[in-house]
């Protein structure tokens, strides 16, 4: 079996990591994933960097920057790219609120002159409350 590379733990890198907040890292992750999503769509639609640049009225170097994972896109730019590539880069669909579901148990009693209707609310945990 061949020897694996030695593992090296860098204290210098540890110090840099300590300065990066989770939110900052998530922003970097998001920008690079966005670039990857754009590239994947270009590939699947067979659209080259030059072609996307022409359609967007930009220089090819601008597309290179977009794909580098360092660009902070505006909503308008993402909307335009999404339109050309046929992908959704901005998700503006409202997330559904958790629906409130209530169950009632309706009982109708008819014993001569004493007719009544009783309604019992059945809670989600299965217990029953008197209305």
């Amino acid at each position: 079996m061949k020897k694996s590379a030695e593992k090296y733990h860098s204290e210098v890198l540890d110090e840099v990591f300590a300065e990066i907040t989770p939110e900052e890292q998530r922003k970097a992750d998001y920008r690079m994933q966005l670039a990857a999503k754009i590239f994947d769509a270009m590939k699947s639609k067979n659209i080259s960097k030059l072609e996307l640049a022409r359609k967007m009225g930009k220089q090819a170097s601008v597309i290179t920057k977009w794909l580098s994972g360092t660009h902070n896109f505006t909503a308008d730019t993402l909307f335009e790219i999404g339109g050309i590539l046929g992908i959704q880069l901005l998700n503006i669909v409202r997330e559904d609120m958790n629906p409130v579901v209530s169950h009632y148990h309706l009982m109708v009693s008819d014993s001569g002159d004493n007719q009544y209707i009783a309604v019992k609310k059945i809670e989600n945990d299965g217990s029953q409350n008197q209305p």
Partner: protein
Amino acid sequence: MGFKIVRLANFIGEEASIYSIFDEIDDSTLLDRFIKENIVAFKSEILDIVKRLKTINTITGAKEYFFKLDEGLPGDGVCALYDNPDSHLRLYCIRYGNSLVIIGGGGEKRKEIRTWQESEKLAKEANRMIGISKKITLRIKEREIEFEENGTKLTGNLEFYEDEEIS
């Protein structure tokens, strides 16, 4: 004395492995030296570079469009992590597909400089990576170095002498 290829244990993701060059004279990796040389003057750029390396390591892999390709000789894999025209730093790497990247050194790219050949520091760092890539390629050809685990792992003889001949 020479150098060895080491796997950076700080990067624990699995999308792409991050390696660097451990220089036995400096007793440091080229990435550590790059950070130490530039953290005071260009702290935000260093943080940005490290964040991107972490994303490459954990989420995206080393996609070619995250790099400036062809910074070395044709086909040698020497590239630089993408740098914006208005940024100050350039960091050289050797990229082996999406799964493995060896981080080298780099330095300041001053505005008046268009290519690395015009900067003594960048020329030194780029040429060093070109030389390292040649040595690795030779060992790959001689099957002294191999890629394993879907190209995410380098194995074999990963220690080099600086004056080692490249045929």
